[in-house]
């Protein structure tokens, strides 16, 4: 399929170094969350671990998936889906989680 190469920067990509840095950051994050798991317990650990996971995901999306460049063209897909996904879980919380413990 020959796609229209609409504009040059559709393929503008970060350079090699950036990728390596991001990779290192990801690796460190993984170690970090594992370390937190060993040291802390309970909600604090869970919170930190999940925040680290979000950071990792954001890094992958932003750099590896080139969203940094494509954002103006695809934000209208990503933003609603994030809102919907988060909303779905939060709406269900009172019902399924809290109601059960009454």
């Amino acid at each position: 399929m020959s796609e229209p190469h609409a504009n040059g920067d559709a393929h503008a990509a970060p350079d090699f170094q950036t990728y390596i840095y991001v990779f290192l950051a990801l690796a460190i994050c993984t170690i970090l969350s594992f370390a937190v798991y060993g040291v802390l317990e309970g909600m604090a650990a869970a919170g930190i671990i999940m925040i680290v996971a979000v950071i990792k995901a954001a890094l992958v999306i932003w750099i590896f998936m080139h969203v940094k460049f494509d954002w103006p063209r695809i934000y209208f897909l990503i933003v609603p889906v994030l809102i919907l996904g988060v909303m779905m879980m939060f709406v269900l919380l009172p019902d399924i989680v809290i109601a059960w413990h009454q």
Partner: protein
Amino acid sequence: MEHAVSDEKQAHMGLPLPNGKLAMWLFLVTEIMFFTALIGTYLLIRMGMPTQSQPWPGPKDVHLVEAIGAFNTFVLICSSLTVVLAHWSLHTNDVRKATMYMGITLALGCVFLVVKAFEYKSKIDHQILPGRVFEKLDGPTGYRFYRTVEEQLKHIVEGHAHASEKAREACRKLLDELPRLSPKEINLRIAGSKKVKECDMPSGASKEVTGILEEFHDEDLHLSHSIPFGNMWASCYFAMTGFHALHVLGGLVVFGVILIMAWMGKFGVQHLNLVEYTGLYWHFVDIVWIFLFPLLYLV
């Protein structure tokens, strides 16, 4: 597009984004919703059901090794890097390098799946499968528990498992006593009171009992015991990791096709888009695991 109107005009009316990329992102959006629903289900069930006396099983209860999960995370992160480097190499017209990176990605994906397979095997060995974990031990379930344990004990005693001699001796003893014990007592004898939750204690049992599993730390002793919410845990675990693994497999197939193309000499810069879209997909698979790992192993 064979019938494409001239490129310039499409660009004029549409987004400055190739159809393929747009479609790929749309596909990823549906995938995000898919995994949101799946992970959401897990979170809600996990936060909703368990109580103080019947907590959600920890990794130890269900033979889950955190380090292995962390290793797999690392493997996927590496593969994310290599796939993006493959795209980058192709971008810089280095087809050979791109092929190499593709190959590494494929290998890393395979490593991930192999590790996963071993994890699955340990679950199967310990019968930590949906619908197979014994939770309440009264009524017909108790009877089934009795029969299962009897079979497992016989298996060990007859020497098919590589259990230590001492452990086998303990098993033989338990097998002899089996008909006189209630399912809850059997459970206590196998798991020990530290692992048996309050509600599963047989009435009048003394609190400090060391079970066979505790005593011998014997990984090869495949004895069933009660795990509160074990079924639900197994259901969630297999559903989530299973669908993730299927996605990994899908990615590997595409990598395989690309490598075959390269082998046949048909792979080149003209496939920049293909590599990019595959990469997008692969990163998404990586991201899913980035969330699954802490949710299943750590939190």
